[in-house]
């Protein structure tokens, strides 16, 4: 009974099976959708933004029915939403809850900040080694320059 009551209060409806990405910074919700290719997703997708959060003040949340993310897939979003948690739902129950982690390599999603890098002039997928996870720093595999959090742009 208690569970049902809780569900009623949810601003974004519960899903039966799938993944919930919670605690997304409000400015990053649409980026997260793009990074995870969810703009093309053709099953139930629930999005909430500017919801009240005890932890963050305001937050975004995305619920994706019938989709389970691999850890390297979900970790891509750590670049824009380091605070995010991934919750796995089966039969309306939380079966797993994990904090996202910054990956060791970043492919395709980030632009190299160096305007003279070959990746900004030819059709080449970007590829970075993450050299600092706390104070986010990515070293470009091509031009070897370091893209830091402040000048990070997403493709």
């Amino acid at each position, binding site marked *: 009974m208690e569970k049902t009551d809780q569900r009623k209060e949810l601003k974004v409806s519960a899903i039966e099976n799938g993944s919930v990405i919670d605690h997304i910074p409000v400015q990053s919700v649409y980026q997260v959708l793009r990074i995870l290719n969810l703009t093309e997703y053709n099953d139930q997708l629930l999005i909430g933004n500017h919801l009240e959060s005890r932890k963050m003040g305001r937050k975004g949340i995305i619920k994706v029915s019938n989709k389970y993310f691999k850890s390297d897939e979900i970790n891509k979003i750590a670049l824009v939403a380091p605070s995010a948690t991934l919750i796995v739902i089966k039969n309306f129950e939380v079966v797993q809850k994990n904090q996202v982690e910054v990956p060791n390599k970043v492919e395709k999603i980030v632009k*190299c900040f*160096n305007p*003279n*890098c*070959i*990746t900004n*002039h*030819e*059709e*080449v997928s970007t590829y970075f080694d993450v050299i600092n996870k706390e104070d986010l720093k990515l070293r*470009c*595999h*091509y*031009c*070897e*320059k*370091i893209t830091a959090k402040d000048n990070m742009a997403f493709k």
Partner: protein
Amino acid sequence: MKNKSLVSINDFTREEHIRILDLAGDFERRPRQRILEDYVVATLFFEPSTRTRLSFESAATRLGARVIGFSEPGSSSVQKGESLRDTIRTVSNYADIIVMRHPREGSARFASEVSRVPVINAGDGSNQHPTQTLLDLYSIRKTQGTLNNLNIAFVGDLKYGRTVHSLTMALCNYNTTFHLVSPAELKLPSSVKVHIKERQLAYYQYTELQEVISKVDILYMTRIQKERFQDPMEYEKVKNSYILRNSMLEGGKSNLKILHPLPRVNEITYDVDDNPKAYYFTQALNGVFVRQALLAAILGVVE
């Protein structure tokens, strides 16, 4: 090293660097060996660099190889709008190895990934110029008899000079003590210093050139370019502070040698040229031997 591309100085291990220097020594003793007679070397210069191109072409020719290529993009399909990917794919059908200079950083790494044959980076924008680094190492070892435990000064533009960055990284393998002389605006960037700190090597920073001359084994001079300064007044203030004159060398050690990647503008006066400590023209000659060694090793005709 057979079939291995050389894009960044760290693509080769310390042992491989040493092997190249040893081979270069063989070519210095016997520069004409027709061991590449059946080979075609492509030199693709997407931006002009007469010195580097001639050095490579001289190296290839002395080994008997045929050289094809272009010396500026205006005379190639690049002007018609061909992508770098397509140029490299096409040329790698015609040549056994590609030597490439390109104005964009990362172009050489990209080329090495789409090419069927190995690529030697002859400069990719402000990023890497590994053959310059190897010839610098060769020159240092040849004049000092060792690469280990030396005191090396870098003078001038330490912020933008890729030559300084790559050589600093390579020298971190040899317990070097670094003496860094530059105007405040052109100090060695932290992305390079981090390599020195990782190895816990000593480094000292100066703004006065005269201060280091008596302390070092190698004085590596570089050019300070006006366009590097945001404020032209700042350039005017420092432009004459990093000029080496013969009279300044009196207190130098007997083994002191002066290196410079060339071309120089005014940062070493002509009266230094006749001083036995001046080594920059021989340094340029050493580039041919080092490039012979690289071509031969990467094409696999020497072990």
